């Protein structure tokens, strides 16, 4: 298993470059760059939830993403904030599963982020503790979607644990 950790400040203006960095790390493991889209989308939705809901209006705070890649198996993406946590964005006790989520009215302008996460992830759980409020996203990746050549992961601005 390969583990990475990324940290930034939860801000509307800066979270996308941050998520693109996480996505680039995941893309390096995959057979084609387009395969990273669902991984980038769920990471972006989870980080956007932190930007929108975790900290009081007008304030910012830390945002951390831990990425665990198990080649030929899947990835776990853990998104952590130190703000109001799941109170602003509650999860069912057993985690998220697509069929359990209420439908979002067609004309609604928000509320689709968690549905997207639930639909694309194999497991979603949340926890609140001394080390912040964390949303854990697990995605299995089929064998044929992994890069088959020798993996060379360049670590530049990333901090690998």
């Amino acid at each position, binding site marked *: 298993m390969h583990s990475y950790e990324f940290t930034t400040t939860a801000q509307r203006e800066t979270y996308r470059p941050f998520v693109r960095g996480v996505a680039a790390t995941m893309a390096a493991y995959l057979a084609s760059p*387009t395969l990273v889209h669902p991984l980038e*989308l769920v990471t972006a939705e989870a980080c956007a939830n932190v*930007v929108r809901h975790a900290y009081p209006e007008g304030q910012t705070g830390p945002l951390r993403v831990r990425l665990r890649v198990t080649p030929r198996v899947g990835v776990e993406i853990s998104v952590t904030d130190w703000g109001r946590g799941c109170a602003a964005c509650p999860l069912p006790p057993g985690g998220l599963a697509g069929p359990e989520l209420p439908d979002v009215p*067609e*004309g609604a*302008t928000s509320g*689709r982020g968690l*549905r*997207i996460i639930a639909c694309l992830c194999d497991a979603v759980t949340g926890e609140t503790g001394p080390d912040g409020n964390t949303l854990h996203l697990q995605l299995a990746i089929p064998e044929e979607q992994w890069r088959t050549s020798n993996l060379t992961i360049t670590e530049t601005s990333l901090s690998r644990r």
Partner: protein
Amino acid sequence: MAHLELDDHGNILVAALTGELTLANATEVRTELERLFGRKGVSDVVLDLGAVSFMDSSGLGTLVAASTKARSMGRRLLLYRPTPEAVHTMETAQLTGFFPILDDEEDLLALLPD
């Protein structure tokens, strides 16, 4: 950030969006789309998504809001050549069918006045 480039066809405006459509710029894009619908004589705004590299649920929410506003004014927001990734995001969010979609240039030319 995102950039809208306009092509004026009388009552139809084609607005090409480049970059991303996410929480980072959703409010800005919504304001711009609503401004376009406020133009005198405009019936349809065609939003060209062919060069949009990434769209999330906040971006979709902006399109839903702009489309709803347009409908309330008797106007339409149409999406032109969304990328496969954007279509996937719409499908996952269960918004397939909410927007009129022009898949290609042939569809666009059929809409534009001669």
